[in-house]
C-alpha cells in the first residue's frame, strides 16, 4: 500500500503558507473544550504543550523524569541551525533545505524539509525572546558558527549546552502555562498504551512510577514526543531513560513505524573503558575542526602514541578524502573508523578507538587558542578518562547517537492513527537516512512551536469527535494489557537481569544493524534477536514489587519493547537493498567503497505495519517525490 503524506498543493516555497491559509481553525471559545494529551517534555513535547496551552487548549503533559526539564534534549551540545544568514555568508532557506535533503541522502520528504528551513528563523526569534542566552559577539549581536562541515555559519549555540538552554526556555514557557492552570503536569509517568476508539487516538494508559498504579487519561488527540530509540543498542549517547516504549505501543495499536534501520552513529565519542560501562559520552564534533584523526599504519601496534613516528601514522581521513579531510560527514567518519579498527589498527587498551590528535594544532596555534576553543571539552575528556588531551591524543570511537527512523507521519505530523500526532525525534520525518548536525533541535522546536498548533487545530476542526471517557471498554482493555505485561515481567523470576539482556541485545544490534550491514548478518540478527526475546520472557528476573518505585521493572518493560523493535530494524535493513546515509549495506558500495544508493526502487520511506508478536510486520511505503532537487551521489573526496 502506498501512504498518502497529504502534502499541500503549490510550489515548494508556498506549500506551508498555502496550508496555513486554508486550514480550518478552532473557534477560540471551543479550544478550552479540547483536552490534548502531550507525552514527552523534550524540545518537541515542551514546545508543543506550551504553545497549545497558550492557545487555549487544555493540556495534560506526561514525562518519565521527575521534572519536565530533565528530558533528554537537555543533553544536546553543539547548536541549532537556522537560515538567518546573519553572517552574510550566502545562507538561505533554500540552502538550508538543500543541505538537509542532501545530507539525508535523499530519503526525506521535500515539503517537510522545506517547511523546516522556513520555520528555522522563527525558532531563533522565539528562543531569544524567551531569554535563551545564546552566544553573542561584542557588538551585542548573536554569534554563529559553522557546524558539522557546513559551508556556512548558520549554527546558533550556547557554549556546549545549547540543548539545555533551549529546553529550559521551552520548560519556562510550559511552567507559565502550568501556573495559568492550562497545563496539568504528570511527571514520573510512563505511557504504556495508546487507546484507540472508533479508529481515533483518544487516550493513553500510563503507569505512575511511584505508586505503580495504572492511570487512564482521555483526550481529543494524543501528541507523542517521546524521543529516539538509540538505547536499543544498550550503549549510546542517549540518557538512560530514553526508550521506544510509547512509540512502540502506539505502533502495536496501528501506527506505522518508518525506516527503523536509519540510526546515526556519531564518530567522536569517548570510547568504552570497561564492560560495566553504562553510557557513552559524546564529544562535540567541532573537535574535528582542529584535531587530526589517525591510527598506526601497522596492525597490532603496542607503542604509545608519542612513540609512534610520523612515518608510521596513517591519517586515513586526510588521505582518503583530500577535500573534506577530517571534516567528512558523521557516517563517513564512523565507517572509516570501524574499518581501520577491524583491520586491527585500533588504539588504546581495548583496541576499540582511533586517535584524535591536537598536537599539530597546539604547535601551530598555541595551547591557549586550543584551550579557548575546546577547554570545556578537554576538561570533560580528562574527567572521564583520566588522560590529559593536551599531552596525549584523545581516543575516540563511534557511538549511536540519533535515530532518524520513527513513527511514520504525514505532512500534518499525524501518524496512520487519526488523532495521534508524533513530534521530534520520535517521528521519522525530516532527516532521511542521515541527520546533519544541529538540525534535531531545530526540528523538535519547529514541530512543537510552529507546526502542531496549525495541524492539530485543523484536525480538531474537521473531525467529528464523539464524547469518550475513561470508562470506555477500550480503556479497560488497554489497561488490562499494560497491567498483564507489567505483572508478567515481575512474575518470571528467572536467572538473568534486565541489564544482562539489554547488554546482549545491544551487542546483537550493534554487530548486525550497526555501521556495516549485510544480508547474512541481518538474517542472523533477526533470528538471534527473536530467540533472545523468547529467552527474555522465560528467564528474566525483576526484583521488588510493582507498587513502589522500581526502576528495574520500568527498564524491563522498555527492554522488552527494544527486543521487538530490534527485530524490525534488522528486517528493515534487510529489505532496503541499497546503501544510503547511515545505512551501509556492504553489498551496495561503489568501486571506491562509498555508499551506493539505488533510488529506483528505494527512494521511499519504508513503513512497517505490526501484525502480531510472532508475525513478521508488513511493509508499506511512501514514495518520495523529488521535484525540486536533483538526486546526486554524495561525494566528499
Amino acid at each position: 500500500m502506498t501512504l498518502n503524506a497529504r502534502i499541500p498543493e503549490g510550489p515548494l516555497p508556498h506549500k506551508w503558507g498555502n496550508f496555513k491559509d486554508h486550514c480550518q481553525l478552532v473557534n477560540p471559545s471551543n479550544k478550552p473544550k479540547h483536552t490534548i494529551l502531550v507525552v514527552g517534555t523534550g524540545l518537541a513535547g515542551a514546545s508543543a504543550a506550551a504553545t497549545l496551552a497558550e492557545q487555549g487548549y487544555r493540556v495534560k503533559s506526561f514525562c518519565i523524569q521527575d521534572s519536565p526539564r530533565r528530558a533528554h534534549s537537555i543533553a544536546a551540545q553543539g547548536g541549532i541551525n537556522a537560515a538567518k544568514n546573519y553572517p552574510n555568508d550566502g545562507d538561505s532557506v533554500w540552502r538550508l533545505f538543500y543541505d538537509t535533503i542532501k545530507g539525508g541522502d535523499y530519503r526525506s520528504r521535500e515539503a517537510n524539509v522545506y517547511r523546516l528551513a522556513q520555520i528555522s528563523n522563527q525558532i531563533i526569534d522565539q528562543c531569544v525572546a524567551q531569554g535563551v542566552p545564546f552566544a553573542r559577539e561584542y557588538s551585542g549581536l548573536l554569534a554563529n558558527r559553522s557546524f558539522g562541515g557546513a559551508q556556512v555559519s548558520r549554527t546558533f549555540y550556547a557554549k556546549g549546552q545549547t540543548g539545555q538552554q533551549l529546553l529550559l526556555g521551552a520548560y519556562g514557557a510550559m511552567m507559565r502555562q502550568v501556573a495559568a492552570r492550562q497545563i496539568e503536569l504528570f511527571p514520573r509517568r510512563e505511557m504504556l498504551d495508546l487507546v484507540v476508539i472508533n479508529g481515533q487516538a483518544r487516550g493513553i494508559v500510563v503507569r505512575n512510577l511511584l505508586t505503580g498504579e495504572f492511570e487512564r487519561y482521555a483526550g481529543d488527540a494524543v501528541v507523542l514526543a517521546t524521543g529516539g530509540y538509540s538505547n536499543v543498542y544498550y550503549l549510546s549517547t542517549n540518557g538512560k531513560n530514553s526508550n521506544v516504549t510509547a512509540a512502540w505501543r502506539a505502533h502495536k495499536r496501528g501506527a506505522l513505524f518508518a525506516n527503523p534501520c536509519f540510526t546515526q552513529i556519531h564518530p567522536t565519542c569517548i570510547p568504552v573503558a570497561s564492560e560495566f560501562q553504562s553510557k557513552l559520552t559524546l564529544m562535540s564534533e567541532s573537535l574535528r575542526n582542529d584535531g587530526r584523526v589517525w591510527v598506526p599504519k601497522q596492525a597490532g601496534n603496542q607503542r604509545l602514541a608519542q612513540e609512534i613516528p610520523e612515518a608510521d601514522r596513517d591519517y586515513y581521513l586526510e588521505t582518503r578524502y583530500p577535500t573534506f579531510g577530517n571534516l567528512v560527514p558523521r557516517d563517513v567518519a564512523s565507517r572509516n573508523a570501524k574499518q581501520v579498527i577491524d583491520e586491527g589498527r585500533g588504539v588504546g587498551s581495548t583496541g576499540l578507538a582511533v586517535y584524535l590528535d591536537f598536537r599539530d594544532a597546539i604547535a601551530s596555534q598555541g595551547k591557549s587558542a586550543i584551550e579557548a576553543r575546546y577547554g570545556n571539552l578537554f576538561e570533560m575528556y580528562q574527567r572521564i578518562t583520566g588522560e590529559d588531551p593536551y599531552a596525549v591524543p584523545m581516543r575516540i570511537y563511534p557511538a549511536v547517537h540519533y535515530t532518524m527512523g520513527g513513527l511514520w507521519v504525514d505532512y500534518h505530523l499525524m501518524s496512520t492513527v487519526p488523532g495521534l500526532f508524533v513530534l521530534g525525534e520520535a517521528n521519522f520525518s525530516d532527516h532521511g537516512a542521515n541527520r546533519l548536525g544541529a538540525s534535531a533541535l531545530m526540528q523538535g522546536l519547529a514541530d512543537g512551536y510552529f507546526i502542531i498548533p496549525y495541524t492539530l487545530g485543523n484536525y480538531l476542526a474537521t473531525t467529528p469527535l464523539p464524547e469518550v471517557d475513561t470508562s470506555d471498554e477500550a480503556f479497560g482493555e488497554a489497561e488490562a494489557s499494560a497491567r498483564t505485561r507489567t505483572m508478567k515481567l515481575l512474575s518470571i523470576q528467572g536467572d538473568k537481569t534486565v541489564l544482562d539482556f539489554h547488554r546482549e541485545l545491544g551487542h546483537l544490534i550493534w554487530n548486525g544493524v550497526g555501521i556495516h550491514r549485510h544480508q547474512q548478518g541481518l538474517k542472523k540478527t533477526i533470528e538471534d534477536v527473536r530467540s533472545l526475546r523468547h529467552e527474555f520472557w522465560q528467564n528474566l528476573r525483576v526484583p521488588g514489587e510493582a507498587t513502589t518505585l522500581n526502576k528495574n521493572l520500568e527498564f524491563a518493560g522498555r527492554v522488552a519493547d527494544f527486543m521487538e523493535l530490534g527485530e524490525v530494524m534488522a528486517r528493515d535493513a534487510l529489505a532496503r537493498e541499497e546503501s544510503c546515509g547511515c545505512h551501509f549495506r556492504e553489498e551496495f558500495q561503489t568501486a571506491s567503497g562509498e555508499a551506493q544508493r539505488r533510488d529506483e526502487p528505494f527512494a521511499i520511506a519504508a513503513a512497517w505495519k505490526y501484525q502480531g508478536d510472532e508475525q513478521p510486520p508488513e511493509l508499506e511505503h511512501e514514495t518520495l517525490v523529488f521535484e525540486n532537487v536533483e538526486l546526486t551521489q554524495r561525494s566528499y573526496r
Partner: protein
Amino acid sequence: MKINLKIWRQEHARVSGAFVHYTVANVQPDLSFLEVLDLLNEQLIAEGGVPVEFDHDCREGICGACGMMVNGQAHGPLQRTAVCQLYMRHFSDGDTVTVEPWRAKAFPVIKDLVVDRSALDRISAAGGYISVKTGAAPDANAVLVAKPDADTAFDYAACIGCGACIAACPNASASLFTAAKISQLALLAQGQPERKSRVVKMTQQMTAEGFGDCSNHGECQSVCPKGISIDAIAQMRREYIRAKLPFG
C-alpha cells in the same frame, strides 16, 4: 579494588530508614560512581535482594537527575562534578563511602536515595520565565545584549536543577537555585518587563515550599556542578530591593 558502601535505605516516605552496609568487589577505576551502584544492584538482585533506587538519566552531568550525599558532600568530593561524572579513580581500595539522600523538608524522601524535588518546578512556575507568546517575537537581533551580560546570564542559566545547593546548605535554603534564574533573566533585555514581579513571586514561592533562609555560608557555590557563583544571590537581593523597597 574493593569499595565498602554505607547506603541509606528507606522503603517510602512514611517509614523511617537506616544505613545498610554493602561491599562491592572488583571496582575498576574507570567506573563512575553510579556504575558502582549499578554493580551493587546487580549483586543484590542475584542475592534475591532489592536494588537501591537512585535517580539518574543523562549520566553526563547535565540533566540534574542524579544527586546524593557522598561522604557528607553533595555529589561527592569533586567540585564542579555531578555524581554521575564522579569516577572511582578518586577513591582507594578499601574505602568506606557513606551515601545519603538529599535532606530537606521540601525534598521528602521517596525511596532510598530518591527525593521529591517538585518544589523546584513550583518555584520555576512562579515566575522563572519570560512571558512571550509563540510567534510574537521580534527578530532575534532586534534587541542587542552586551556580551558580558549575555555571558554572565549564561553562567547563571547553566543551572541543572539537581538540588545540590539546597542539600549542602546548612540552612536548606534554595537561594542559589532561585537566584540563578532571577539573575539570568534580569541581565537580559528580554527579561526587563517582568523583572520586578519575578523576584517577588519566585522568592515567595521558595519560602512557601519550606526551604530555609540564606545565611551566606556560600556552601552552595562549592557543590554546584556548574559552579554557579553566589554573586547570583547578591544580584537577587538587588533585584528585590529594586522591586520592593522605596529606595530601590
